Every structure is written in C-alpha cells, then in structure tokens.
C-alpha cells in the first residue's frame, strides 16, 4: 500500500446517527448555496425506516436533519438523480417496493412521493436500483431474476418487465451504460450486457469462473461505455471490456494478489465508483483500454483508491465495515460514506 503524506491525508468527520444506516447519497444541488445529503436510516427501537435529507454546514463541518420521510420497510438501495432541474431520490425496499421522492428546492423538504407497491416489480427484496444520469428512467433488479424498467412520467410511474429468469439467474447489481444499454451482475462473478433494442435476454454474458463470488456493485464511465467495472466478494474488483469479452482486467482481489498487484482488501467490496477527483495524467490521451482510477469501500472497513498498475492508496481505515459511499459530483474531493456502527463519515480530500 502506498504511503500517503500527511498533507494528502483527507480530513475525516464522523457523525453518529444512533440508527443503522442503510444508504447514503449526495443530493444534486438544489440552489447555489447549501449542500445536502440523503440518508436512509433504520431505527431498531421503533422498527421503523426513514429517508432523511441532511443539510451540511461548513466551519466546522456539521450535518443536521432537514426533513424526513417514513418508509414502509428497510431501504435496500438508494440513488439520486436530477430530473428537469429537480432532484429525485429513488429508494427500493426489502419488501420489494420502489419509491420515488422529489425534493422541494425551497426548503429541502421531501414532498411528493410516487411508488410501486411490493410484489409488482419483484417478489422479494430489490437488490439494486440504478437511475439514468439525467432522467427518470430507473432499472430495478433482484435475486428473483427479474429486470424491470420504471420511468417517471406525467401521470406517475410506468413500469415494464424487461426480463424474467424465474430465479434461474439472480441479479445483484445494475448500471446504465447508455439510454438503451445497461449491464447487470450476479452470483459467480457473472456480468450481463443488455440492449433494449434487442429484447428477449442479455446480449452477451461474462462468466467469471475463477472463484465463486457475488458482484455487489458496478460502475460504467460515460467516456468508456464499453468497459464495465465490477466489485464483489474476496476484495475483487475487475473490469470487463466488451471488446475483449473473456479476459477481465483484475484490479484487486485474490487473483490479483497472485500477480504483482497488492490487494487492498480481502472481504466484500460493497461499492465501486470511478473517481473523478484523481486526475490521472491526460485522460483524453489515455488508451481507451486503460482503466480509469476508481474508489472502493469494503467490509474490512477501508476506502481505497485504486488505479491500474499503481499501488492502492488508503483513504480511510475504520474498525467496522464501510457499507457504501458516494462521491459528490459538484465537489469530487468530498466523499460521504456509511459505517456499520451507526454513523456517517465525510472525507474531505485536500
């Protein structure tokens, strides 16, 4: 692991919430001033779940709840997007319902809610939702083997089933690549590539045979739509380039440790994201097969940035698991993450 000089160490602020945190995201900017984060919470004392908007203040950095919405069940996946200048919060639950909340720009309150009740999209917990960057198109996938498309329309939510494997294939992660294409991931480190113009199933499939693990998270960079970055069990992070389909590029993990790469973690990688903060030379001049720098968090309690052919750089090491993180698109130096021990941490990179 590369040594980080003290000047490069991020500043870390921890905020105990006294509730379990099921997910955390930055909210797209509401106005010129004020920054907000969306936190999905579970209170075991009252057995209730909620989504809260927290406003952040600087000097000293602090976060305080601004508004809240009570969820019928625990949140399994949380995403935000901006739709016609309005920030939207997409949340799926363990009982299989999907909720779309809009945020009132004036006072950051969660006002209107559209939802698809349980048992319609999925039979069981929704594993993952992914929202198209600038829009209201939302993918939902689950272990029951269904892939659904939910779109925000004038009159409410419209939904359509893209595929149903009847449980013969389970999907645990999904990510849009373009308005028509997307990728999914599942157990056995398998990845599928889908094209809505070619219905009836996945266009192509990657079977990661080397170890039996599960894909937990994926990312696809807008400038590299042919490459799918996936993270999962055993600290595994790999990239699947559609142009060289059966040769994954392993960035971290058990396989990587056999080669020269040092694996930053050994346990589940819960989230992987391309990291816009790291300027890796001239990106335009980079070969398109070069994998862009990314950030991961893991069950071992670390947040690390990884880059192909370089030593990983550890940004945060906690005694408990880090279950997810989000990089602020407006301020890529700022990372918010949810810790297993009922708290949120914010990293500010210099």
């Amino acid at each position, binding site marked *: 692991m590369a040594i980080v000089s003290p000047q490069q160490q991020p500043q870390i602020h921890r905020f105990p919430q*006294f509730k379990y945190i099921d997910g955390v995201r930055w909210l797209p900017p509401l106005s010129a001033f004020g920054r907000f984060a969306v936190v999905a919470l579970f209170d075991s004392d009252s057995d209730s779940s909620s989504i809260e908007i927290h406003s952040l203040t600087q000097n000293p950095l602090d976060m305080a709840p601004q508004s809240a919405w009570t969820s019928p069940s625990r949140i399994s996946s949380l995403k935000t997007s901006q739709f016609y200048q309005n920030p939207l919060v997409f949340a799926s639950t363990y009982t299989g319902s999907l909720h779309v909340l809009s945020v009132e720009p004036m006072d950051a309150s969660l006002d209107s809610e559209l939802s698809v009740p349980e048992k319609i999209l999925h039979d069981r917990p929704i594993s993952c939702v992914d929202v198209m960057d600038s829009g209201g198109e939302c993918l939902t996938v689950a272990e029951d083997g269904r892939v659904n498309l939910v779109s925000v329309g004038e009159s409410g939510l419209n939904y359509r089933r893209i595929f149903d494997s009847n449980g013969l294939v389970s999907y645990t992660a999904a990510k849009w690549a373009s308005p028509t294409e997307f990728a999914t991931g599942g157990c056995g480190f398998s990845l599928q590539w889908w094209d809505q113009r070619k219905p009836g*199933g996945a266009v192509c499939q990657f079977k990661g045979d080397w170890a039996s693990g599960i894909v937990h998270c994926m990312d696809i960079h807008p400038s590299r739509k042919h490459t799918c970055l996936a993270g999962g069990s055993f600290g595994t992070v790999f990239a699947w380039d559609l142009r060289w389909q059966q040769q994954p590029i392993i960035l971290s993990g058990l396989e990587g440790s056999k080669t020269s790469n040092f694996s930053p973690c050994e*346990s589940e990688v819960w989230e992987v994201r391309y990291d816009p903060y790291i300027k890796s030379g001239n990106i335009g001049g980079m070969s398109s097969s070069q994998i862009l720098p990314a950030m991961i968090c893991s069950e071992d309690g670390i947040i690390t940035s990884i880059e192909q052919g370089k030593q990983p750089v550890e940004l945060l090491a906690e005694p408990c698991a880090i279950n997810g993180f989000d990089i602020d698109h407006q301020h890529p130096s700022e990372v918010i993450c949810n810790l297993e*021990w009922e708290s949120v941490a914010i990293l500010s990179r210099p």
Partner: protein
Amino acid sequence: MPAPVSDSSPSGALVLSSSVDREVVYPIRHEVKPPIARLSISWARGNSFRVSIFKQQCGDNSAGSDDGEVGGQVLEVKIRNGDTEISAAEFRRIAYGSVSPFALLQSRKNMVLGLSKMSMGLSQFNPDGWEYIAEYSKDVSSILGNPKSLPSSAIEDPLEILKKVEEPTCLKAAWELMDVFYADKQSHWWLNERLVDWLAEYDSVLLTRQSTIHSKLFNFQKELDDLQVVEDNPSYWDVISSALAVGWQEIVVKMLRLHGSYQLDQLSNRETENGLVEAVAVLISKMPRMRPELDSGRLGECFKTKPDFTKAWEKWRSQITKLDGSAFWVYCAHVQTREGLRNMLQIILGNVESLSGATCNWMELYISQLLYVRPFTMGLESMYNLAERCMQLKKTSNTDRLMRLMIGILGESTEVVLAECSRGFGPWMVTHAMELLTEESDQVEVLLHEELHDLGGISIEELHRLVYAQVLCSHAFTWQIAPIYLTSCAKQGIGFLETLLYNQPVQHNGMLLKNLEICRLYELDGLSSNIMKIAGVYHWKHGRKAFGVFWLRKARDEVRLNKIALQLFDSVGKSISDESFKQWEGLIELLGSESKNTGGLEFLHKYRDFKKSLHQVHHKGKTTGVVQSAVDSLIALMKNPSTPQRFWLPILNDSLKLIDWHEGPLLNVEQTNLLLNKLQELSMARLRPDFVESDLTPLALSSIRLALAKNLGRAFLEG
C-alpha cells in the same frame, strides 16, 4: 428504592430494577376485553418479549351479548434496566467505541505473553506494560464523553461562578475513579489531588438524598442575580466555605471578589474589612499543591517533591495561623464577614467540625480531609480508615453507587470492586474495568483467571466477558462485535460464537456475507459451510434457484445438489425442440465447465453441450467435425452415471439422425453396444414400481431400436 413504573404501554418499556429481590407486579396495558382465555409469552427480537393475549372463543350464546369480535392482541414488551442515564442508542455508541481499545490491549497482552510464555503480569516483562493499560484507560474514557464547555459569551461574566458544562455521566465518573487507582500509576504520588480533581468534575453526579456542594452552588447561582448585598446573605458564606472545603479555589476567590467591600463607593469606610477579605483571597490563591501542574485559570502553587511541598505547606499554614490570630478582626464591623472568613480559616487549618459543617456527604468530607488534614500521600489502608471515619461522621442510609465503588477500591477487595462495577454500572463496565485490575497483583491475577468449578470450569474474567457478549448478541446491531469478546474467552467462547452465528438470519445476502466474513476471520470453516447450506436451501425453497445452487456449491454439499438436480430435471425440457431450455443457460453458466462440486448438476452442463452440437448438426453443417463432436457428447452423456434414467430415451430419440446417419455409421461397435445396453436396462427398469414412463410414443422406441440395429450392422461391416 425505585418503584415499578405504573404506566407501561406497549410502546413504553418496563423498568426492571436489579436491586429488587421481592415479587414485583408490572402492569401491561392491553385492549382485549375480558374474559381472556389464554396468555402466551415468548421471546422476541432483542431485549423484548411478546405477550399474546387471546380472547375467549365466543360460543352460540354470545350472539347478543358481545360485539362478536374474536381474536386478541400481541404486545411487544421491551425490557430495560433502570439506568435512565444512558439510552440504548448511547450504550451502543459506547459499545462500538470500546471495541478497538479492548482488541488492541488483548493483542498487546497476547504478544507479551507469547514472548515470555510465562504467567506473569505484563508489567514485569514489559516496562511499557503500564503505559498500555494507561493508554487503554484513556481511550475508553474518551468514548464515555468529554466534558465540553458549552458555548458561552466571549466576555467573562463576573457573576458566573459555575462554568456551564455538559452534564457528565455516572459511568464516566466510575471509569475515571478506576483510572485514578488502577491505570494511572504514574500519578500515584499525587493521588490526593487527583481525587480532588475527580470530585470537582463529578460531584454533580453523586446521587444522594442530601444536596451536594455542586447543587448548592447551582442553586446559589440562580439566586445571585437578585441579591443586592451578598455578604449579608448567610448562604453566600455557606456556599463559599463549602467550595473551599473541597478545593474549588477559583470559585472561592471569584465569589470573595463579589464582596460588597470591593465596591468603590464603599472601599473607604470598609477598608479593614476589605483588607481581610483580600488577604484570605490571596492566601487561598497561593495554596501549595502537591501535584505536577494546574490547568490554566486554576489557583495554587505546585510542588513536585515532598520536601519542597512540606516546607511551603508549613509556611503557608503559619501565614494562615498568623492571619487567624491577627488583631484586625476586632475592627471588622460586619459580623457575617468576620464569622464567614474565620470559618474559612478554620477549614483551611483542618478543623474537622468546620469541614464537616461545610460538606454535604462523606465523600466530600473525605476529599476535604485529604486536602487539608492529610495532604501527604498515604497507603490505601490508612485511606480506608479515614474514609470509614468520614462515613461515621456523615451517616446516610442510602449510599450512592460511586461511593460504594470508592469504598470497594479503598478496601482493596477485588471481589467487591467487581461486584460494585457489575451491580452499579452493568456488564459493559465490569468487562472493561477488569482489564485495569488484572495487572494489579498476582493475587488478583489468580482470582480473575482461576477456573472455578462453580462456574462450570470458567474463570471470573471469562464469565463477565460471556455475560457482556450476551448483552451484545441481544441486539441486531451489536451482535457483530460480540465475537471480539467471545474469542477472548478460552473455554466457552467459541461454542457461544458458533451458536450466535448459527442463529443469524440468512434471508439477505448482505447479512449472510457479513456473517460468513466473521467465520472466515476466526477460521470457522465447518460452521461457514453449514451456514452456506442453510442459505442454499432457503433460497432454493423460495424459488431463487441460482442462489440456492450457488450457496450449496460453495458449501460442497453434493447430497443436496443431487436432490436439487432431480427436481430441476423435472422442469428441464426433454426434447430438442423445447425453446424453454434457453432460459437455463444462465444457471448452466453459473455451474461452470468444471464438474467439481456440482453433484448431479453436471449433467445439465453436458446436456446443454449435447443439445448445442445437435442443434448445429440439424441447422448448419454436415462437416465431419460438427457431427463427430455431437456423437462424442452423446456418448459422454450416456456413459456418465449422473445422467438420469428418464432422460435416456429422449436423448436417444433426439439423436436418431446421428444413429441413422445417411453417409455411413458414426458410432463404432463398442459405442452402439453401449447404447443398446442402455436401452436394455430401460426395459428392465420398466418393471420397477418407481419407473417414470416417458411421454414418447412406443413407435419412437422401436425406431430407436431399429436404427441402433442397423447401425450395428453397418459398423460391423465397416470394422
């Protein structure tokens, strides 16, 4: 004696008091109308139980008498202990925070133990041993909260005698007390002053029937704004002497400066009086203290060696005595001032009656004696005797848990200290405080680590850790940290851990993976594969076939995979034309090409390959390569013992074209014989009761026979 709470609704919680040893009735409010037929009680999640109240089943005669309502009500009743100081959420925060210091200390201890391989204390081997303990104690203490000054105005308020700070907790006070005696050995030479500091910080959390000096000050602060002439008010002198008795000199000096004689218009005619007040204030602020330093803003002169201190102390005392015997007192016209100041001097001179009058409980009296009567460090035995004398002077029926802990410590009885920690502050405290005690002496070491027959062969240390781990296990959020404590229990820890891990739900993969990660960390491979089996069966039952196969395969559970395979084959299309086979692709991909650990499922993979090549023969090529690979897969399938019998006929039927190949025989004699034998076996099996008849026509069977016979003949000729 805390009384049971009368109002306990379903949403509320029962308050159980550990000090109650008689029967107590806890009422539960419910809305079921009598008569009640049945009551059932069961454990629910965490620290709660479920009370189900069933209504009497209405008979025929109840038609008009009742509202016809049947059923009952289920109430979830939470149990919590009577300690309202720390909420459940705050307790979890403390539990999370103390994991790292505890784990670090354990690993350091193990390291030292590994180096020495001898059962002697950390300190004898490692000169830094005490530093480890001290560091641990400081880390834990910081989790319990730091008294933060609340934001106050930049300009100092002359009337603000008590600084506004966040209320400290009793738990923190107890920990700090343990720290003073057991962890911070470096500071034992100024133990008295440390106890003075301790009381200054935690006097407010002493729970007694009587008031404390802190509460007296707090009340006086409220009155202060309305007082015109403070020195006329008896409580002004009362509060000053109390503060002085326990060494809160800054407050004393600040309050003395509120004296009316300082006012400019009065200075001239109260000159003597003011001189006396100021003389006392100056003397107090110059008090010699046996300690390394004082925080800024605090008054006194520090001395680090006993001779220096003794010299300064004697000199200072002589100044006090001189002032006491001064002739100026006669000229002090204001009676209250004269009496008040002279009482203060008596306190400083260690007049036991004055000290007793100025303090509210024996703890305060004790601290005041340490400050003014016995300022030199002494052994624990004489400290204990002094405490006993103080208790006789300030008798109370009800003693605070902190005071009981103090007596236990001074009495040098480890059992009492542990019992007080446990009784007063719960399993968290006793588990973590024990670490401070283990280095105390060999005797303590034996007491804590001796395996006791009464406890089922475990030591006291292990017992307390197991109890604490049980508390952690009872909550869905904290069970994950229980393994840290369980694995430090040599005898029964692993057993408890296995039970804990077995009992975790497997429904959600996230939870399951966290569970398996703990198995991996502690190398519980057998357990991990059992958990995977449970998960596999669960997912299979709920229709998530992929995850079912995934987990069972990871658990290498061939038996269940074979059973699953039989069920799966029922739904697999048996004919080549069946398009539904396409959806199986994903599952087959999951199985991978290796036939290891798939049990009967390897058939699926071979069957898929066979169908693929057959498909190619039908649609694409007549090239020998394609045809030959189709024959190879056919033979491989029929040779494989895992191919289910009921597939034989459909497979042979699908391969009719291959068997009866128009360009000549593709199968040699040996291969044809194999297929014929299989056919023969099938007709024999038909006689068995469990035989499943295929849905092919009898005509198909005869055409297969015919084709095979024909091929055999041609193969003979070719051979």
